[in-house]
């Protein structure tokens, strides 16, 4: 596995597909959520409108360098995450830049965006941003744990850290999926998945009610546009990892769309059913329900 220049257009293609799918998907999910709440909800193309509007805004201010770079970090995090994981199993076209590193790279690169984002938000000097960041970080420490344990269990199970090989190991029938070969690990991972999707009951970080949209409070116009783009790409990139690790990956785009949709749906359903946790509540929740599963997973692995 090494680099050829042709990978760059391929990667851009992936990016393009995923981005658009992301815009639509998030909108659809928003609509579903609204319908559950007996509201009408937004049209599916709403994201495009917002994007255009934000780029079009003339007024734009900055609080300083980090503030300016914040969204860049954020989106780099999203795109990079996408790039470091092969999207479509078995296709050279959509294996992206996964030669640069394995699963661990992806896992740690998740934090790249949020860290930069947090810094940018920090420089804005807005207390709400800082509060949002602290909540986010606090929650992450507990939410990531089950996932880390699950990943470890899976890696041990397949004796590799390479995403491609893990997917390869799950081919040939639905029963080869990790979901069935290692259900406990998957359960733990999915619980932490809920925590990382910024949806109820774990959306206290953004907390639209009491602190208008948390870390990004101060961001507007093109900054916001970048972050919206990220908000479309990042969840999908993350879901791709879940899909590859636990649900047999995707050998083609249709399968890809389907699986991503379903996995995303899980968090939405949970989100519309449960009220929001406070930070310490969600931490306790993860430690009490999710972590033990993870522990069992690695012990029996």
């Amino acid at each position, binding site marked *: *596995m090494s*680099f050829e220049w042709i990978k760059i257009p391929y990667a851009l293609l992936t990016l393009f597909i995923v981005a658009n799918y992301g815009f639509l998907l998030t909108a659809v999910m928003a609509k579903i959520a609204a319908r559950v709440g007996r509201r009408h909800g937004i049209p599916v193309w709403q994201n495009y409108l917002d994007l255009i509007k934000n*780029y079009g805004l003339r007024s*734009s*201010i*900055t*609080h*300083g360098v*980090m503030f*300016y*770079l914040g969204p*860049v*970090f954020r989106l*780099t995090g999203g*795109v*990079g995450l996408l*790039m*470091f994981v092969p999207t479509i199993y078995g296709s050279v076209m959509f294996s992206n*830049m996964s*030669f*640069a*590193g*394995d699963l*661990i*790279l992806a896992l*740690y*690169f998740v*934090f*790249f965006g949020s860290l930069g984002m947090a*810094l940018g938000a*920090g*420089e804005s*000097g*807005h*207390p709400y941003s*800082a*509060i949002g960041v*602290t*909540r986010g*970080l*606090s929650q992450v*420490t507990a939410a990531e*744990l089950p996932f880390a*344990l699950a990943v*470890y269990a899976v*890696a041990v199970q397949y004796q590799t*850290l*390479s995403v491609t090989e893990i997917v390869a190991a799950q081919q040939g029938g639905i029963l080869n999926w990790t979901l069935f070969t290692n259900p406990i690990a998957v359960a733990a991972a999915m619980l932490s998945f809920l925590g990382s999707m910024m949806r109820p009951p774990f959306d206290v970080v953004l907390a639209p009610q009491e602190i208008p949209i948390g870390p990004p409070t*101060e961001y507007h116009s*093109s*900054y916001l546009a970048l972050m919206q783009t990220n908000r479309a790409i990042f969840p999908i990139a993350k879901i791709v990892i879940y899909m590859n690790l636990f649900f047999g990956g995707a050998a083609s785009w249709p399968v890809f769309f389907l699986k991503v949709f379903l996995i995303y749906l899980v968090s939405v359903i949970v989100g519309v059913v449960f009220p929001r946790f*406070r*930070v*310490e509540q969600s*931490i*306790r929740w993860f430690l009490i329900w999710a*972590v033990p599963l993870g*522990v069992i997973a*690695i012990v029996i*692995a």
Partner: protein
Amino acid sequence: MVSAIYILAVGLGAAFLIGLLRDEWRAGAYGVSLAALALMSLISASWVWVLASGDGRAVDILTAGTLPPYAINLRMGLAEAVLTLLINLTGLLSAVYLRDTLFKQGRRALATLLVFTMASCGIVLTRDLFNLFVFFELVAIATGGLVLLSRDQRALAAGFKYLVASQVITVLLLVGIIFAYHATGTLNIDGMAVLSELVIKGGGLAFFLMFIAILLDLKPFPANGWALDIYESAHPAFSAMLSAASASAALFAADKLLLIGGSTWLPVATGIGIFGFVGANLFALAQTNDRRLLGYSSVAQVGLVLAVLGQRDLLGDRYLFIAGGILLAHAVAKAGLYWLSGLVEGRKLTAWSALQGHPLLIFAFASFIALLVGLPPFPGFYAKWELVIALGGEGRLALLGLILFGALLEAGYLFRWFGQALKRERSLEPVAASSFKRAVILSAVAAGWGLGFIWGALSPNGNLLLALPLLFALAFLALEPLSVRIKNSVAIVGMVAWFLLTLPSYDPLQLIFAAVMLLGGALILLASYQTQGQRIGFYPSAMLMYAGLAMLIVAEDAFSFFAAWESLTIGSYFLILRGQRSEPHALSYMVFSLGGAFLILAGFALAAGGDPLFTLAGLAKVAAPIAPWVFLLLAIGFMTKTAAVGLHIWLPGAHAEAETDVSPMVSGILLKAGLFGLFVLLMAMGSQQLYGVELTHLLLWIGALSALIGNLMAAFQEDAKRLLAYSSIGQMGYALFGLAMMNHLGWLMALMFVINHFIYKSMLFLSVGGVAKRTGTRDMYRMGGLITLMPLSFIAVLIGIIAMSGVPPLSGFGGRWIFYNAILTAEYRLPMILIFISGPIAFLYLFRLIHTIFLGQLKDEHRRVKEAPFWLVLPQMIFVAFLLVFALVPGLALRRVDAYISQFHPEGALGWEGLTITSDFGYWSPISIMIVVGVIFASLFAWLVFVNRKAQKVKQFNIVFAGERPFRPETTHFAWNFFAPYRKALGFMTEPLVERFWAAIVDLLHASADLLRRLYTGNGQTYAIQLLAFVVVVYLLRTGL
């Protein structure tokens, strides 16, 4: 060769002679006395010279032209010569010191002083029991007189108590002597020694009486209130003589008696001695009067020597070397300290803060304490080494443990005293400015160092004072008058030069540590250029630490390893002590470090099997039953340096309170010494089972716990430097965890942490130090918004936290990647959970660090803050460069180590083909990552700039704030109690249980000491009763057992 009898004759003659002088001719009398004392010293010195140089043997001096045992005879051997020299010199120097007093008191006092010295020599020289008694009486009576030289009215009562006690002793001694004579028909000690009848014909009891009487003359704990009162109230110069001269003489007398008693009485001596050593040191903990404290310490030291004498069956012909080392070190140090106390007005320990501003006296103080505690390069160190090794070899572990425990107590109160003297606000009374008194003190210092050299030369382990790094460090004492810039340059050049000099001899592991410790140390020293003036005391301490580190890396045998360990501990202690409010923390650091050092010593003693030249390689050959214990002792010892959880409480304060450029040294570099020790240990001994418990498994848990607790505590700190300090605990936890995994990648990861942690922790400490220097506070919530004012420091911190958090693309990720690959092959999974938790927690404190300092709202009082000084920024920038390079090509450092580790763990080596590093499980291509991320970032940034080029900078408070406009940074800067909800959730894990535990132990010791010492009621009669009780109890124990 002048006969030794002249020592006595001259003393007596002079005493009688000055009786003839008129009262007015004080100067004359004084001159005569000095001349006599000098002459006596000269005679002893000549004997020492002859006997030490080998030509010439111990000679017997007959009296009355009759052969012993029919007439009294004296003996002059090497030991006698040395002791008489010690006694006479002490007498001479004290006489010099006492000049004014003696002039006031007149010739009677002079005569008494002379007789005291003469009689002490007599005790040493004579080989006749009754003659011994006569000299003892002379000393006792002379003491009764010299006590009154003090201006302290209480001395009168003390002297009387002393006489009462000596009366009781006399009775016992005489009865004993006469019955011993009856049993053997001779009074000659050697004669008795050869005769065996002493055991029959009731001679045993007779010997008991004599022996116990002599022991009582040693002021044994706890039957020694009378002596302590003397020590407290007498003139310091006389206390010096009492502690140095007469105690030594009495010890030698006890030694002679043991010749008679034979091996059956050795255990008694050991028992009484060690009991006194531990007990007296314990009591001293609660002492606040300096002279009484010294008294306690003298009692303790004498006890230790007595215990050593009791071990002569084990020590063989080395016992003179060992006992002599401890005894002389004690004598010189104690005399010096008493003389020093004469310069200080107040009698409280804290009154010694008057010494501040007198670097020479401080140096003397430090040297004396080091002499007492037995730190390198002083005689006590060599002596204790051989003693402990011998005890360990023979399996006398209880005694070994007690000795080390007592020594730890002693070090505790001595260094507490030293800390108070240096750090408490300077007391107003000036130090007595008498030049000849200082000369006396300095001569004692010189004697101490000289003894250190001699003992080093005598020791089979080689002379520390010939070790180049140590000499280099000591040389800075001479350079002190120079300015910082010169000294700093010399230091840097020296360290780099030494590194280059020793470069060829390093194996890859040593190379990594040497690079971190020496080159890294030199790099950090760049920051020291920004200090002004002379900075007295900094360079000797720092260089001592670095010398220790340099010697530690290359140490081949256990002794040099331990010596290096001790020196770096002392050096770092002085360094840490320099901080503003670091007194208590420096103390706890010292106590923990010495405790750890003693555990290491015990471990070596167990392993060495009595061989003082034990090599580190020999650790591998240690056999089954003791091997795990050795492993345990050494591991715990090393973990006190790495501040593993449970032994970590010294670290936060010590690192946080240290000076700006000291924090990175003690954090970035010093901690690695512990890791190096653990490396050496694990390489040699591998993993050991104890009661079926895999000890490395234990280490895994400790490492994981340290990582968790360290990170968690760090997240809740308000003080930036404390935060960094706690994070060090966490980082060391990772490294320990990696080591304890006992597989290839685990060790590689540990090494990765050695390098990484050094770089980013030094960098962070420097930049945070710079910020603290500029803002005048270390509380993060008082800062904020400094990014625009201190951009360089911000960049350093930014790079630092990215690297530390392990986020790609910087080098921290490499550590994490190796870690994941390592745990895939580890057989223990549970401890990893803790590591998994602590990983993300790192983000909490890291973000807090950068956000609350550099981001958020700028405070009004900081609007004029400038960037940190150049010399602070420069090393940071160099570190930044390092980090980036190391992130791109970790192979530079790691490849060779990887290969090197393969000899210990062949399986699991990494592959280094091309740009990609591959393991058995995954792969990682730092450069590609860097490029990919860079490209994405650059293009997005370009895009943003394109769409958002006309973004305008707005003022600080121009934010969407619920419709209103905030104006006070204090209320707008969200910083204090940053992770409140997290505290709600996991705060219970930050309960300071460990602190409470140690505090409880310390309180227990102090409380018991304070309670028990009321045994000394001050009533002379009670003291006499205790004396008698001591005799009876010993008798009962002796017969009962």
